[in-house]
C-alpha cells in the first residue's frame, strides 16, 4: 500500500477566516428572514379567524334571539295585538284561597283579566310561581271555551300534542327560559270579554329564626328589571299604554287564608297588607285570615308572618288527607326553643377533598369555610380533619376536644392544604366511620361526618356498602362543590347517614353555604328519633324520609306517612342531651288537609327513581312513578303538565266548528316542565389571546433588534469613514 509520510495540507481560500465569517453572516441573515416569516405567518393564522369572527358575528346577531325574559312579579296576560307587539294586561280581580298546613301551603288563585280591545286576540298567560312551588291544576275560562291543565302521562300528552298538530296548525311548545315562570297560550279571546284563570299550586313556608312566612306574588308594579336595552324599550311601551294604567288602578284582590300552624301561634302580621285574623281553635293554632279592606289594591306582593309560642319541648303537629282510599299523614316537628347549652355534644369529623380538580377558587373557599367551621365549634364538641386526594392526611389520629390549642393546630393544618392528585374516597370515609372519639367526650356525643368534595364518585356501590356496614352510629352531611359532584351518591349517602346534602354549584358561594350548614347542624336537640304505630297499622305504613334525621334547634322537619288504615296515634321516641324523650301524637283526622299526599308522593317518586341507579326494573319503576304522579298530581320525569281544551258537550259538529276547535286546541296547549339548572362552566381556554400576545412581543423584539443592528451598522460605517 502506498503510504505517505508527508502531511499534505490543502488550504482552500474558501476556508479562510474571511469567507467563513461571510458565509456565517449570510446564513444568519437567512435564518432571521425565515424566523420573521414564521412569526408573521403565525400572526396571520391567529388574527385571520378573529377578523372573520367579527363578520360572522354581525351576520348571526340578526338571526339569534338571546333568550332572556325580564322578571315578572305578578300574574299577567300578554296580548298578541297586531299593532303593538306586546300588550300586557293585568288582572282586574284576584282572589286567593290559601291553606297553610304546618310548613306547606296550598294556594288556589283566581284571576280575572279583560281583553280591552275591539278585536278577537290571542294571549299568553304568565304566572311567576314562588320558589319551589309545584303546580297542580289550571283552569282557564274564556267565553264558552274551557281549558283544563293537569298532569298526564308523557306518552298520552305527546299523543294529544301530535294529533292537535296534525289536525291543523303548528302546536306551540312552551319552553320555559326561567324556572318557575308558568306560561300558557290562550287563543280566540273575544273582543271586550273576560278571561278567568284559576291556578292551584303548593309551596313551602319559609322558616327562619323561629319565624314563619309566606309570600304570594301579586305585585303588578316593578316588572322587568333588565339591563337589556330592548327590554327597557318594551317597558316604556307598556307604561305608555293607557289600558294598562287603568287596569292597574282597578286591580283588586281578596285573600283568604286558613292558617293551621300546627302549634300555638303567638303573633301574626303582614308587612304588606292590613289583615284581620280570627282564631278558630282554642289552643290558638288555627286562624282564619282575611284582608281588612275586602277589596284591597294588589299593588304589592302579599306577605304573611307568624311566630309560634316558645316551648321547651319539641312540638309535633299532624295533618291528614285521604286520597283514593289511602290515608296520608304529615307530621311536622317544631324544634324546642332551648339554650344552646342544653343540646347534645358533637364529635365532628371534616373530610375535605384536596384533589387536583379542587384547584383554584374551590380550594380557597373550602379552606376558608373549614377554618370558619372550626372556629364555630363549641367547647363541648370534639373534632378532627381528614384531607384526602389519592392519599389520606389526618390532623389527629383520634378526635380531639375543640380547645384553643387544638384549634390552632387545625388552622395550621388547613393552611398547608394544597389541591393535587386524584380522588380516592373510600379510605378517608372508612377512617371517619371507625375513628375513636376523644376520651373527654361524653357518651352521647353525636358523630357528625361532614364530607366536602367536588369529585365524581366512581365507586359509589362500594361506598354505600361501607356506610351500610358501619357499626357506629353516625350522621353524614355531604357538601358537593362545583359542576361535577355525583349528586346521586351524595344525596343517598346523606339520606342514609340521616344528614343532609348541600350542593354548591357556584364556587363563590362555598363559604356562605358552608357556614349556613354548620349553623344548622350545630345544635342537635333530639337524636335517634323513631316512630311507633299501633300493631295493625305498623305493617302498612310507608314513611318518608325512610330514616328520620335529628331535630336541630331552629330547623323544623317533616315526615310523611301513607297507610292503608287510618292512623290515630303515633308514638315518637328519641334522645335529648340528658334524658330519653317520648311523645304521643294524637292524629286528628276529622279535617282533611290539602297537599299532604302530594308531599308524600314527591318523596315516593324520588325514592323510586333513585332505585333505578341500583338496578331496579325500569318498566316497573316507570309504571309506579306514573301511577303515583297522576294520583297525586305531582310532576315526574314520565309525566307532563299539559293544558288541553275541554271538549264542549252538546256541541254540534259542523265542519267549520271542528276546524276552529282544532286550531284553538293546538294553540292552547301548554306544558309546565320541571326545570333544572345546570351550571355552565367556563368553556374557553383563551390560548389564542396568549399566543397572540407572545407572537406580538417576539415580533416587536425582532424589530427592535433589527433596528439596533442597522443603527449599529450605520454607526460603524460612520466611524470607519471618520477614521
Amino acid at each position, binding site marked *: 500500500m502506498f503510504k505517505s509520510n508527508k502531511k499534505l495540507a490543502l488550504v482552500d481560500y474558501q476556508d479562510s477566516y474571511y469567507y467563513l465569517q461571510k458565509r456565517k453572516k449570510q446564513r444568519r441573515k437567512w435564518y432571521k428572514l425565515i424566523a420573521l416569516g414564521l412569526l408573521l405567518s403565525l400572526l396571520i393564522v391567529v388574527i385571520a379567524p378573529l377578523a372573520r369572527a367579527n363578520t360572522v358575528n354581525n351576520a348571526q346577531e340578526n338571526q339569534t334571539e338571546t333568550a332572556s325574559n325580564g322578571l315578572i312579579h305578578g300574574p299577567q296576560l300578554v296580548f298578541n295585538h297586531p299593532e303593538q307587539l306586546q300588550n300586557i294586561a293585568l288582572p282586574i280581580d284576584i282572589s286567593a284561597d290559601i291553606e297553610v298546613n304546618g310548613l306547606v301551603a296550598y294556594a288556589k288563585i283566581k284571576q280575572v283579566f279583560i281583553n280591552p280591545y275591539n278585536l278577537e286576540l290571542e294571549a299568553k298567560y304568565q304566572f311567576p310561581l314562588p320558589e319551589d312551588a309545584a303546580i297542580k291544576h289550571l283552569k282557564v275560562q274564556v267565553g264558552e271555551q274551557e281549558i283544563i291543565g293537569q298532569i298526564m302521562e308523557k306518552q298520552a300528552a305527546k299523543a294529544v300534542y301530535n294529533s292537535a298538530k296534525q289536525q291543523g296548525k303548528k302546536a306551540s311548545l312552551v319552553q320555559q327560559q326561567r324556572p318557575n315562570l308558568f306560561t300558557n297560550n290562550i287563543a280566540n279571546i273575544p273582543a271586550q270579554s273576560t278571561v278567568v284563570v284559576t291556578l292551584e299550586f303548593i309551596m313551602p313556608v319559609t322558616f327562619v329564626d323561629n319565624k314563619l312566612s309566606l309570600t304570594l306574588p301579586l305585585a303588578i308594579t316593578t316588572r322587568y328589571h333588565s339591563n337589556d336595552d330592548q327590554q327597557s324599550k318594551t317597558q316604556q311601551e307598556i307604561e305608555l299604554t293607557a289600558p294598562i294604567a287603568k287596569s292597574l288602578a282597578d286591580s283588586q284582590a281578596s285573600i283568604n287564608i286558613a292558617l293551621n300552624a300546627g302549634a300555638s301561634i303567638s303573633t301574626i302580621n303582614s308587612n304588606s297588607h292590613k289583615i284581620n285574623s280570627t282564631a278558630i281553635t282554642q289552643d290558638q293554632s288555627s286562624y282564619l285570615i282575611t284582608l281588612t279592606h275586602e277589596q284591597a289594591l294588589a299593588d304589592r306582593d302579599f306577605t304573611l308572618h307568624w311566630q309560634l309560642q316558645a316551648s321547651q319541648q319539641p312540638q309535633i303537629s299532624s295533618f291528614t288527607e285521604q286520597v283514593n282510599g289511602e290515608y296520608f299523614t304529615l307530621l311536622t316537628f317544631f324544634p324546642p326553643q332551648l339554650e344552646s347549652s342544653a343540646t347534645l355534644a358533637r364529635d365532628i369529623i371534616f373530610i375535605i377533598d384536596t384533589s387536583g380538580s379542587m384547584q383554584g377558587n374551590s380550594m380557597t373557599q373550602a379552606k376558608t369555610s373549614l377554618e370558619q367551621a372550626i372556629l364555630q365549634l363549641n367547647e363541648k364538641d370534639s373534632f378532627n380533619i381528614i384531607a384526602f386526594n389519592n392519599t389520606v392526611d389526618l390532623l389527629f389520629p383520634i378526635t380531639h376536644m375543640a380547645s384553643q390549642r387544638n384549634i390552632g393546630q387545625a388552622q395550621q393544618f388547613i393552611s398547608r392544604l394544597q389541591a393535587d392528585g386524584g380522588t380516592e374516597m373510600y379510605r378517608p370515609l372508612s377512617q371517619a366511620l371507625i375513628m375513636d372519639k376523644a376520651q373527654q367526650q361524653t357518651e352521647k356525643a353525636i358523630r357528625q361526618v361532614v364530607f366536602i368534595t367536588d369529585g365524581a364518585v366512581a365507586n*359509589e356501590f362500594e361506598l354505600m356498602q361501607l356506610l351500610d356496614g358501619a357499626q357506629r352510629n353516625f350522621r353524614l352531611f355531604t357538601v358537593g362543590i362545583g359542576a361535577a359532584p355525583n349528586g346521586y351518591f351524595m344525596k343517598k349517602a346523606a339520606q342514609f347517614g340521616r344528614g343532609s346534602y348541600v350542593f354548591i354549584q357556584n364556587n363563590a358561594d362555598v363559604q356562605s353555604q358552608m357556614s349556613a350548614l354548620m349553623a344548622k347542624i350545630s345544635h342537635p336537640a333530639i337524636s335517634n328519633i323513631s316512630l311507633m304505630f299501633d300493631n295493625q297499622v305498623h305493617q302498612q305504613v310507608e314513611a318518608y324520609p325512610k330514616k328520620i334525621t335529628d331535630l336541630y334547634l331552629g330547623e323544623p322537619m317533616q315526615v310523611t306517612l301513607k297507610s292503608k288504615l287510618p292512623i290515630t296515634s303515633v308514638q315518637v321516641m328519641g334522645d335529648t342531651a340528658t334524658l330519653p324523650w317520648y311523645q304521643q301524637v294524637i292524629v286528628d283526622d276529622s279535617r282533611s288537609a290539602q297537599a299532604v299526599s302530594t308531599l308524600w308522593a314527591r318523596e315516593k317518586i324520588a325514592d323510586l327513581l333513585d332505585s333505578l341507579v341500583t338496578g331496579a326494573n325500569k318498566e316497573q319503576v316507570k309504571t309506579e312513578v306514573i301511577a303515583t304522579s297522576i294520583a297525586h298530581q305531582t310532576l315526574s320525569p314520565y309525566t307532563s303538565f299539559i293544558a288541553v281544551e275541554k271538549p264542549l258537550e252538546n256541541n254540534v259538529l259542523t265542519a267549520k266548528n271542528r276546524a276552529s276547535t282544532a286550531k284553538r286546541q293546538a294553540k292552547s296547549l301548554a306544558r309546565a316542565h320541571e326545570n333544572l339548572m345546570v351550571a355552565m362552566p367556563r368553556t374557553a381556554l383563551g*390560548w389564542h389571546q396568549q399566543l397572540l400576545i407572545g407572537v406580538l412581543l417576539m415580533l416587536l423584539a425582532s424589530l427592535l433588534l433589527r433596528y439596533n443592528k442597522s443603527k449599529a451598522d450605520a454607526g*460603524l460605517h460612520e466611524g470607519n469613514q471618520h477614521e
Partner: protein
Amino acid sequence: MNSLAEQSNKTANKTSSKPRRMLLAWGLLIIGMLLSIQASWLPAKAWLSQQLIQHSWQQAMATQANTVSANYPQTASKPWPWADTFPIAELAFQRLDKSLVVLNGGDPTTLAFSAGAIAPFNQTNGTKPFVVAGHRDSHFSFLKEVAMKDIISLTDTQGRDQLYQVERIDIVDAASGQLPLLADESNLVLITCYPFEGIGNDANERYVITARPI
C-alpha cells in the same frame, strides 16, 4: 449569538442607550417566547390527553366486551394513573367525521383534557338530559360546524349506542352561570363558549346545541 455580543460590545462604547435597548429587545423576545410556548402547551395538552383518553376508552370497551354478563358496577379506567376523572362516553358526529371521548365532570381540570359531562347530567341511561361542556378553542371548536338535523351518536361505557338529532341551536346569555334545562327530556346538550373566534377566556355567551334522541 457571538456576533451579537460582539456587536453590542462594539457599540457599547458608542452610545450608552444601545445595550439597554438590546436588553429590552431580548427580554421581550424571551417573554414572548415563553408566552407562546405556554399558550401552545394548552392545545398541545388537549390533543395529547385526547390520545391517552382514546386509548383508555378503547381499553374500557375491550374489558366491557370481555365481561358482558357481569353485573358488576362499571370500573372506571383512568386515562393516566393520577387522573381525577375517567372517560364516560364517546360522541361521534357522522357528517363531520369527528369523534370525541367525553370525560366525567365539568371542572376546569377535566375540561382541559377533554369535553366533560356535567353532573348530575352525566347519566347516559337516565331519563334526564346528558350535558357535555367543552372548550371552544380546543375540543369543541368543531361545534360551529354542527348544523341542524345533524346526527350525533353517543356510546356509553357499556357499549350501547344512542342516536341524537340536532334540534335546536341557541346562543344564551351566561351571566348567571346557569342554564335552565327541561328535566324530563333525555336530550343531549352540548355547551361551549360563544363566539367561537373570540379571544380571552371569559365569554358571556354560550353556544348550546340540543339534540333529541331518535
